[in-house]
């Protein structure tokens, strides 16, 4: 098996040199497309104050205006600049998406690695994970936010908790496979302590799967945040977010369609970018999966 799979080399993680990036991008256009789009969105969101107007300033005399030189996407029902709100809304979506994915990935990785290695811990913790998995994200978020009041921090926690078990399971399954590899046994024979074996020999193998899963979690976290904000239990209404914008503008769809289309399209593009990146990473780390499709 090892002999057969030798020519199909997965990109070795952690030894990616800068000079190799153009070659990798040519071979994996999805990574380039998704990563590039996402990078562009992040830059636009970070640089928002430089070119976008004030997203919260209300002007009752300019309600539901069509696009103009002053307000590129027109204004909403309270006379706020839709373009500025859309750009600033990207910050919320990206922060919530990336941080939820990162926290689910880190916690899931820790749980998964230990569960994959220790049988006793495995039985208990994976049952708890099964329990967590059965909690609907939206209900958990509503419950948590009604306890603490709305906020971005609690939103990230609420989204990360139900996503963690999927990551933990995935990591655990990778660890179960890797721990039997002869090089792990060789490390034990060489007198390596368990934490070192886990860190140096087992954990790196989980990174590709973790990155792919992280992208999926990120995409779904962005959608969940928008959904929660739309329902009014996500980001506080005074902060511009795509979900809030769609919720507050839904009555004016016929008069000022951009108030909904601008955040809606941005939401779709962001999720698409993250998903493209995730698919691209999967193909990059597992070339055989790509061929099978």
């Amino acid at each position: 098996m090892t002999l057969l799979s030798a020519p199909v080399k997965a990109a070795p993680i952690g030894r990616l040199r800068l000079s190799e990036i153009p070659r990798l991008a040519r071979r994996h256009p999805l990574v380039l497309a998704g990563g590039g789009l996402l990078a562009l969105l992040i830059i636009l969101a970070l640089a928002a104050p430089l070119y976008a107007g004030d997203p919260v300033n209300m002007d009752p005399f300019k309600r539901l205006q069509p696009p103009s030189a002053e307000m590129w996407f027109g204004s909403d029902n309270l006379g706020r600049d839709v373009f500025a709100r859309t750009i600033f809304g990207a910050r919320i979506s990206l922060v919530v998406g990336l941080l939820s994915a990162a926290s689910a990935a880190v916690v899931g990785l820790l749980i998964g690695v230990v569960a994959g290695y220790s049988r006793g811990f495995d039985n208990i913790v994976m049952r708890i994970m099964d329990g967590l998995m059965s909690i609907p994200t939206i209900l958990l978020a509503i419950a948590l936010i009604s306890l603490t009041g709305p906020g971005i921090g609690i939103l990230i926690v609420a989204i990360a908790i139900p996503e963690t078990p999927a990551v933990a399971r995935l990591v655990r399954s990778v660890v179960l496979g890797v721990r039997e590899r002869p090089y792990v046994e060789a490390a034990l024979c060489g007198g390596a302590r368990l934490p070192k074996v886990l860190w140096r020999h087992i954990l790196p193998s989980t990174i590709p799967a973790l990155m792919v899963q992280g992208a999926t979690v990120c995409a779904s976290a962005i959608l969940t945040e928008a959904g929660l904000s739309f329902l009014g239990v996500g980001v506080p209404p005074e902060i511009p977010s795509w979900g809030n914008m769609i919720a507050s503008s839904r009555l004016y769809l016929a008069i000022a369609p951009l108030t909904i289309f601008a955040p809606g399209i941005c939401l779709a593009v962001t999720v698409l970018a993250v998903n493209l990146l995730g698919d691209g990473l999967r193909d990059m780390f597992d070339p055989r999966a790509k061929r099978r499709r």
Partner: protein
Amino acid sequence: MTGPLLKVENLTKHYPLGAGFLKKTIPTIRAVEDVSFTVEAGETLCIVGESGCGKSTVARLLMRLVDPTGGRVLIDGTDIAGLRKQELRAHRRRMQMVFQDPYSSLNPRLTAGQIITEPVENFERLTRKQRNALAADLLQKVGMAPEMMHRLPSELSGGQRQRLGIARALSLNPSLIIADEAVSALDVSVQAQILNLLLDLQQQMGLAFVFISHDLGVVEHIAHRVAVMYLGRIVELAPSEALFAKPVHPYTEALLAAAPVPDPTRVRLEAPVEGEVPSPINPPTGCAFHPRCPLAVERCRIEVPPLVPMADGRVVACHVRAPATESPGPRLRQPNRRHTVPEANA
């Protein structure tokens, strides 16, 4: 230091098949059953046998990669089967393992230098300079250029990878190296190079080897003594020349007769032994070999033959060829001329 370097006493490993919670009896695989042997410093002991006879399990038990069900493994008089994990770490320095598959036994994400110096770094801190010096030294010992330390395993050939595996095993200056089919994944020409490297290292460093193999040609080339295993038990343990010149146990006889000999004029025996290896889940009673043995007598079915010392320093477990007490009694089946082995060729 008195006594042998490695002394294995009644080593046994049973693998339970599934967790028996409600069922009273759990079926077990009897992988290794009551295995005892010793290895002197600087000596090569080969363990041979067909697939599934427990050879590799013995290797893993010696390294305590698996915990034995029973028995003792004494290295310099310390029983490693009873050690706690922390104490075990220190004793692992005395014996190291070379693995069968040079592809999967090296971490694909580490460089050659990192791989071979890691064992030392488990015990002491090395500066960058010391690490590079150590890596260069170890690579030189196994006949590789020091520049190779920056290569990844995927950039090396099978033979070079196996040299790395040996360098890793040497890094802790062990007295004993356990090689589990260390050359069977390599090309014949590379096999010879690796075997000669092992023999050179043995001479230079006084290493002892436990060499596990199914390739009798390899075994004849390197072994001082040979242990033949069948279904988890040692059936014959003899000095190499004596074993290859005149096998005593009928299984050894069959094994040697089955080995290919590069001589087209030699007449091959048809099927020296009939039938298949029985399952280690439910091994035959008495001598495990009796259902296939041309010499079997009634007693073989009832009683496990003990290892009986013979005049030339070998031990054999056979009621017929090496009776412990009185004569074995009538045979179970007619002796078949096909089963007799011709004069062993010199």
